[in-house]
């Protein structure tokens, strides 16, 4: 009798184990349920509209959704994804979203799928208030005008209403309205490094052997590596944002050498990983995203987002329209875009260290002290508090890298999608396996 009970229990145990294994392997994906409003009842009732947004975790913020719903009267559903999932869904599952919130460098992949419809520039009220670099590639003659890679203005316009070709000159058909953007650089722990870091080249410095890290997303990691190699004079590039096969070979060889030497402690893929690496002291110098630096600082650990001699690597994201939008839903989407440029959102993002697409509209929602600290690079007159009540900078502190002009103006390359993307991924895998 006992024997049967035993066996039963064992089998149940085995089954549970198997069940756990299965659930661990499966990754359930939610299917957003958006009942399209029936046209005959709702034709002129914008408040019954629900817009579904997809975007990365950094951009899908509940506070913005709530405020938008309150101001605009219709509903927004936000879905936070990783950069790669976001692109995958944008390209392969166009029915899953109404508004795409993605990075400019993903456009050479997303636009050919035909899943986005052009934004009519004439319907965007604050278009002329958007930072001119996005709309015309101009920015006071500063280095950013000559930056390499998938700079936003290069993929800002489409040739025609039904076109999937980019236009080099401004047209009435835009791809994305800028939403979040920033100038990325190396972050370091001044307490563990013990001096000021001024060049990208320091990432390969023997002094920090086994204590550095780079980003393990091929398209972004390669740009950081290129900045380092160029800074050290190890090699030069025709265009870092569009490397040739030979250049990719050469840069991956340099990376392999560094890996074999034990220069890197680890590679990171998610925001949290980079924060953990830095705050635990496993890594003292690494390529980082600006909110990650803020996250380390908010743990009471000193972390500097270094302004470097060679300049910054820029990234920018914006929102675009799904081709499925029409009628009242399309109107709602335009209302949302106009609301986004109106200023409240810009100020909200500005308090977290991002820049607004249209800074002058954001200015009226920020206090003079906030504006001076975040945009002008002046010492904080009072403690800087972000929208989530966290103090990001004490009174007297100065933003790393200084003013908007100094930081944005010195972007020398952008996150990129290269023509040799497939080859790049292959070589990157080789590097990881080496």
């Amino acid at each position, binding site marked *: 009798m006992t024997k049967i009970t035993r066996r039963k229990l064992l089998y149940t145990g*085995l089954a549970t184990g198997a069940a756990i294994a299965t659930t661990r392997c499966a990754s359930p994906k939610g299917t957003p349920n958006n009942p399209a409003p029936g046209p005959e009842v709702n034709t002129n009732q914008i408040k019954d509209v629900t817009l579904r947004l997809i975007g990365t975790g950094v951009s899908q913020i509940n506070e913005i959704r709530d405020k938008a719903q309150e101001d605009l009267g219709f509903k927004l559903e936000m879905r936070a994804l990783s950069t790669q999932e976001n692109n995958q869904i944008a*390209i392969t599952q166009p029915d899953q979203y109404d508004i795409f919130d993605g990075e400019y460098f993903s456009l050479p*992949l997303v636009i050919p799928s035909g899943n986005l419809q052009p934004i009519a520039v004439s319907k965007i009220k604050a278009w002329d208030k958007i930072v001119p670099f996005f709309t015309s590639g101009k920015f006071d003659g500063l280095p950013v005008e000559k930056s390499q890679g998938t700079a936003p203005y290069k993929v800002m316009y489409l040739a025609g209403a039904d076109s999937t070709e980019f236009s080099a000159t401004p047209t009435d058909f835009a791809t994305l309205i800028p939403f979040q953007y920033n100038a990325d650089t190396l972050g370091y722990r001044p307490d563990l490094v013990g001096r000021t870091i001024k060049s990208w080249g320091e990432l390969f410095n023997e002094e920090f052997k086994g204590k550095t890290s780079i980003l393990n997303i*091929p398209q972004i990691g390669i740009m950081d590596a290129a900045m380092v190699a160029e800074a050290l004079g190890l090699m030069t590039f025709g265009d870092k944002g569009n490397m040739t096969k030979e250049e990719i070979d050469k840069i991956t060889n340099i990376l392999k050498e560094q890996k074999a030497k034990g220069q890197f402690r680890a590679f990171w893929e998610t925001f949290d990983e980079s924060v953990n690496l830095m705050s*635990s002291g*496993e890594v003292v110098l690494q390529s980082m995203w600006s909110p990650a630096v803020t996250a380390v600082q908010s743990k009471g650990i000193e972390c500097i987002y270094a302004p470097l001699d060679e300049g910054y690597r820029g990234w920018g994201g914006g929102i675009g329209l799904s081709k499925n939008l029409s009628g009242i839903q399309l109107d709602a989407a335009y209302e949302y875009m106009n609301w986004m440029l109106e200023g409240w959102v810009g100020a909200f993002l500005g308090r977290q260290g991002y820049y607004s697409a249209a800074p002058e509209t954001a200015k009226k929602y920020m206090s003079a002290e906030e504006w001076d600290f975040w945009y002008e690079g002046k010492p904080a007159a009072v403690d800087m508090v972000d929208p989530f009540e966290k103090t990001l900078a004490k009174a007297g502190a100065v933003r790393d890298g200084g003013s908007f002009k100094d930081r944005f103006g010195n972007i020398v390359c952008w996150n990129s*999608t290269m023509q040799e993307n*497939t080859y790049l991924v292959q070589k990157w*895998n*080789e590097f990881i396996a080496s």
Partner: protein
Amino acid sequence: MAKAWTNVKPYLLATPQAIALGLFLVFPIVLIGVVSFWEFNGYSMTPAFTLDNYIGIFTSDVTLKTYLNTFKFVGLTWLFTLLIGYPVAYFLSFHVPKLRWQVLLFLLCTIPFWTSNIIRMISWLPLLGREGLVNQLLVGAGLTQQPLEFLLYSDFAVVLGLVHLYVIFMIAPIFNSLMRIDRTLITAAEDMGASGVSVFKEVILPLSAPGIAIGSIFIVTLVMGEFVTVRLMGGGQAASIGKLIQTQIGSLQYPLAAANAIVLLAVTFAVVVSILRLVDIRKEL
């Protein structure tokens, strides 16, 4: 009529399971197989019949290196889960007298499952990190001058993570087969004058072989496709086939990833078949 019914009945009973397996297992795998012959560019894939994906895989030395590395993880994980799992299962079945205690202790072994990947990622750091507990202990006790760097973000860490995670899959089937051994056989062997060692060698080990085989199949199939633990514990510096496929999927190279998945499936299948040829696990079932 009644006879025909008897003949049909087992097939009818098996139908729901067959449909479910066909729909959710066989069909997707066939699809992956089909896609593996497609062409792709940076953003889309087009139906075609090209062998380029496979040629790419078999001509690249990255594939070989990555497979060797994956086999290394499989081998080491298998060895350590067996070395840990067998004694644990043996202890549970032969030295714990009460069923209640056996079950309770067995449940204890499942604890590693209760933690999510995120928790593990965060919790290994303060333990194994450069300034972690282990290093503090070693340096504090004067055993080493410098903190040991290999404890985290290394192959050592990957194997440690995998063993910690999967040892239960070795314990459970071995425990199961040990429990089923007729205790009178052991008594008989002892009556015939066999020593403890030879009882183990001649009676217990052969009878528990099917359990070891099942455990090994679990370990092989789980570790061959591993990428999360490899990435988190290896700090992204260690390669495995699963990780390679994940990077390709992330870069929207589905056909290439599919081709790799098919090769991985074939290799894993070959290993499982050879395990099955060594041990007749049907005795167990």
